[in-house]
């Protein structure tokens, strides 16, 4: 493959480049927002769309649907990557934006399981698949588009703006959920208000489509199109040619696979762990995630710019190594911060009460609430529900216990710091990755070639992290140890990132400013 030098006239002047970045980033951010509001509300969605009675099955089903969105991303990468290399970057990522916006809006309209039965989860699954397809086409287009406008030597810095969008999209999704929940109240939000974050997506998409329609095509794409050098079959060139296929495999196994698990552990498994394993209260979890994201996001730009100076490889592999070495101590500290057994209870503040109610079937429901307050300012509410059947021949149901833990102010900030550290690792592995991928493949097949490893690494290895880690945790629960091993889920990201680190150390080239 012969490198083609890019003349200065083909890359945009700094002001024009910032417009290109802003226009690309707004659309990508909104797509990430659309994709993540589903994940951020997995628990509520489980109750609305999946059969009740077995909360674990409902939660896993929701996670599986969440995972379905990730799994389908590589197919979106193939479909839209090919389109992007044939018809151009601009029109392709306009199409992905419309597809994403339409499917997100539709999720907000689907009736629940109580209204339409099995059609509810089926429709949700189909719409989630469409979201995944759209996202599979979006990211590669945006990263390629910005990189093809950026000057050599600063590509890491300029593409890192696109890298912030995934985290900011997640931030936006949490922010919209918190505001909606506050405005409507918890009960209204849980019954119907959760639909609003999906529905408002249509307005965000309309703004983004307007902005993108005013953008010009990538200068490098225009040049190879004018020269008649466009690929006729990008899929064949990308994956049937040994010289390119080996680079696709290198990108996947030596870089993106590890990056994906570090990213999804820091931002998503951390949330699942705090909320499900530690039972920290819904709003506290989202506030601490918002703060951690806000403080960490500027580091995407720092590491992106730094990678222009010292190369992409040391920063990405450094992030993976730090994650591998510190995940266990970090999660043990997280557990300790919200562990009631490690705290001293203020016995004078201990409160408890029991309420008896009769349901429509005539069964008596006994609800016992116990509130524990601890010396450090944290507290815990334990609610136990027992159904005592009207038919005396039947025995009482197994009590269902739900625990909610409120962190003390000190505990809140400590937890924020621990999540911040994990997101800092994310900025190390993810900040330089767009520039790294763009530099690995030639313009004529770049969209297709970089999208597939990116979405297998992030969509599958990364996206399935909460699903696999939660499964490992549930599988560790036995009759002898019903609590299970809370840290066992960490073995998945550690093993994947460890393998990727060794592969990257051995096989990755370091700095490569040329793009062909």
């Amino acid at each position, binding site marked *: 493959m012969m490198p083609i030098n890019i003349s200065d006239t083909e890359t945009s002047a700094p002001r024009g480049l910032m417009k290109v970045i802003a226009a690309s980033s707004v659309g990508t951010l909104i797509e990430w927002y659309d994709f993540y509001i589903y994940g951020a509300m997995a628990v509520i969605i489980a109750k609305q769309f999946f059969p009740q009675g*077995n909360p674990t*099955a409902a939660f896993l089903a929701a996670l599986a649907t969440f995972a379905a969105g990730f799994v389908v991303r590589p197919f979106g990468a193939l479909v839209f990557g090919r389109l992007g290399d044939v018809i151009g970057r601009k029109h392709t990522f306009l199409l992905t934006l419309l597809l994403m916006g339409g499917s997100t809006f539709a999720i907000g309209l689907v009736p629940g399981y109580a209204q339409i039965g099995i059609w509810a989860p089926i429709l949700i699954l189909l719409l989630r698949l469409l979201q995944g397809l759209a996202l599979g086409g979006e990211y590669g287009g945006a990263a390629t588009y910005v990189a093809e406008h950026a000057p050599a030597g600063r590509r890491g810095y300029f593409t890192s703006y696109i890298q912030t969008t995934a985290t900011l999209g997640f931030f936006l999704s949490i922010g919209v959920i918190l505001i909606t929940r506050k405005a409507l109240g918890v009960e209204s939000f849980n019954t119907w208000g959760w639909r609003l974050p999906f529905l408002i997506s249509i307005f965000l998409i309309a703004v983004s489509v307007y902005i993108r329609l005013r953008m010009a095509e990538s200068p490098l794409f225009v040049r190879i199109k004018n020269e008649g050098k466009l690929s006729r079959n990008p899929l064949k060139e990308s994956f049937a040619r040994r010289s390119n*296929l*080996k680079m696709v495999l*290198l990108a*996947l196994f030596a870089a993106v696979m590890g990056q994906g698990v570090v990213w999804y552990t820091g931002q998503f498994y951390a949330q699942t762990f705090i909320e499900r394993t530690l039972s920290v209260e819904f709003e506290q979890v989202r506030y601490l995630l918002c703060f951690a994201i806000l403080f960490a996001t500027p580091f995407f730009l720092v590491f992106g710019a730094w990678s222009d100076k010292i190369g992409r490889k040391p920063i990405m592999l450094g992030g993976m190594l730090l994650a591998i070495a510190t995940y266990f101590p970090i999660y043990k500290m997280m557990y300790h911060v919200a562990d009631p057994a490690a705290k001293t209870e203020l016995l004078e503040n201990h409160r408890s009460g029991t309420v008896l109610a009769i349901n429509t079937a005539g069964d008596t429901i006994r609800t016992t609430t116990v509130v524990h307050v601890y010396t450090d300012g944290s507290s815990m509410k334990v609610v136990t529900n027992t159904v005592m059947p009207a038919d005396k021949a039947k025995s009482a149901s197994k009590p269902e216990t739900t625990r909610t833990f409120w962190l003390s102010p000190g505990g809140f900030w400590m937890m924020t710091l621990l999540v911040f550290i994990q997101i800092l690792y994310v900025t190390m592995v993810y900040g330089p990755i767009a520039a790294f991928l763009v530099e690995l493949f030639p313009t004529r097949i770049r969209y297709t070639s970089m999208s597939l490893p990116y979405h297998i690494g992030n969509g599958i290895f990364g996206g399935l992290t909460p699903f696999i880690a939660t499964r490992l945790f549930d599988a560790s629960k036995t009759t002898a140890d019903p609590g299970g091993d809370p840290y066992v889920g960490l073995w998945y990201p550690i093993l994947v990132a460890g*393998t990727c680190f060794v592969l990257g150390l051995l096989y990755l080239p370091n700095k490569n400013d040329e793009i*062909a």
Partner: protein
Amino acid sequence: MNALKRFFGFAWMALGLAAIYLMFRQAGTEIAEAQAGLRPLLDTRMFWYVIIPIFTPIMFGLCLFGWFAWKGEFRSDKTTQ
């Protein structure tokens, strides 16, 4: 370094095949336990029906990567495009 890259090619091929074997073995064991009532059947089946079709081709990809490494495709002079 190039010799090390080639030598590790074997390791990646072996790792890919071992991962496929272990996935199938674990899935078989867990689904059998679930059918015997020792695990929740729906959760167990769903997990493995998601994992196996997704990760098996990816692990074959790792084997192919190992094969390329063994054939010297990732020599320092061949990975800079």
